[in-house]
């Protein structure tokens, strides 16, 4: 039984890594949101399997919260935002895709190297996946850096939070309930504020390109 759950957790970890790369390479905003939804679903499955394997009921609760928030609520909010902003096919990258992907491989190697000594100390059944969680965080971070538009950056931020959640589940069987609920609410409020922010950027500059924000005042 432990063999199977171990394999499932490894599989979900590999899927998360693959999805992080897919988001890095994705050019279209709509597909990006679909990938984010999928990432949330994998996260829910991973948390549920982990809860079953370790008999920790609070992992089921956090899986449920993740399901409601990251699979249903936030994607639907994002869909509404991009419909209102009418930016469904927007695509712009600061670096071309193959270069980004190769940089991504380097990041993954760095994350694995960094996580190896920590994983040696942990006693959790999913300790091997800590490196993957760290890699997901770094990859989402890079996605935020390489995009110039506001919406992909917000999705990158959310994906980074997904990676953090996975890291917490993998290393210590999840954070305390209070912290987890707090983070969930923070993400929800964050997406609402960022949504308002996106409308403000658009109103001000007639575009969602955040490079406009680099100027301090009109010359």
């Amino acid at each position: 039984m432990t063999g199977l759950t171990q394999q499932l957790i490894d599989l979900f970890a590999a899927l998360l890594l693959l999805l992080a790369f897919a988001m890095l390479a994705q050019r279209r905003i709509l597909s990006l949101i679909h990938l984010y939804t999928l990432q949330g679903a994998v996260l829910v499955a991973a948390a549920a399997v982990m809860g079953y394997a370790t008999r920790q009921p609070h992992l089921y609760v956090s899986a449920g919260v993740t399901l409601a928030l990251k699979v249903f609520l936030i994607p639907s909010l994002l869909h509404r935002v991009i419909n209102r902003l009418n930016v469904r096919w927007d695509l712009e990258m600061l670096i071309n895709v193959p270069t980004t992907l190769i940089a991504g491989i380097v990041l993954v190697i760095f994350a694995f190297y960094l996580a190896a000594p920590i994983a040696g100390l942990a006693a959790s059944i999913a300790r091997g996946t800590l490196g993957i969680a760290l890699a997901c965080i770094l990859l989402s971070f890079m996605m935020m850096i390489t995009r110039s538009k506001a919406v992909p950056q917000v999705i990158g931020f959310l994906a980074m939070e997904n990676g953090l959640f996975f890291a917490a589940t993998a290393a210590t069987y999840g954070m305390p309930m209070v912290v987890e609920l707090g983070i969930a609410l923070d993400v929800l409020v964050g997406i609402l504020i960022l949504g308002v922010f996106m409308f403000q950027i658009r109103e001000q500059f007639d575009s969602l390109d955040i490079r406009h924000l680099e100027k301090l005042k009109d010359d």
Partner: protein
Amino acid sequence: MSVLGLASQVLEIFAALALAPLLAGWVGQCRAWLQNRSGPGLLQPYRVLHKLFNKDSVLATHASPLFRTAPYVIFGCMTLACGIVPTLSTDLPLSPAADAIALVGLFALARVFAALAAMDVGTAFGSLGARREMLIGFLAEPALLMVFFTAALISDSTSLTTIVRTLSAREIGIQPSLALAAVALVMVALAENARVPVDNPATHLELTMVHEALILEYSGRHLALLEWAAALKLFAYACIGIALFAPWGVAHGQAPAALVFALPVLVAKLAAAGFLLALLETVSAKMRIFRVPEFLGMAFLLAVIAMLVKILLGAGPQ
């Protein structure tokens, strides 16, 4: 080197030579069925080979000896490649001589000769095809090597027979690294065998062709050898996929009965692989040549992730 090992080696090479055109015909037939056509029949590649071997070979005035020797070199490389991949038995006398890296080298040797021969006569199509072939080749090769390295990491050896023996002894389970490597291998195989997303095997005169542009100047027995070599290459890639990701049913060591049993299993697996290839080709559209680097870059990425996941998560159940 035992008598049985020698026998299985010879049997394997002859099976490859005989079955390779059949596999090509099966893929063509499946494609025809999926596209609602009646198709040319399974034996069409044999008929084409027979026709070409009975025709005279025409050479250009400026063709050098290289142009004439290249078909034999390419055919020899592909036959040897089919002999190295363990499809029927893991007791192969050739296998200590050549491991997975040597196999990739054999494919590279064949590719270099094909490109040189295509440029030899000096037609525009030949050098265009040669350049495209090298573009695809230099991107596909590292991805193929990474796929082999993933399997080699799991079985602690680059020898293909050891890899097959270790992988088939393992209990069946979900292996993320092998799944990723399998997807990468399929992408590399599509590019290397001039199949649909990268090249169209059904066309003869089109500006986007790669494989057909390479062999445009050949005729008669030379063309027959090259066509046969192309079929052998497809066969070799299918066998690599089977050896790495579905190695069950291969005979181990001194077992004549298992050897007899291995052949129908191989044919069944090849039929499934050929149908999957035809299905993939039917549902995908040919991409622009400038998208190919991105396609193969993705294959390389998947293979590298497979290797990294293997290093971090371990092999799973042994």
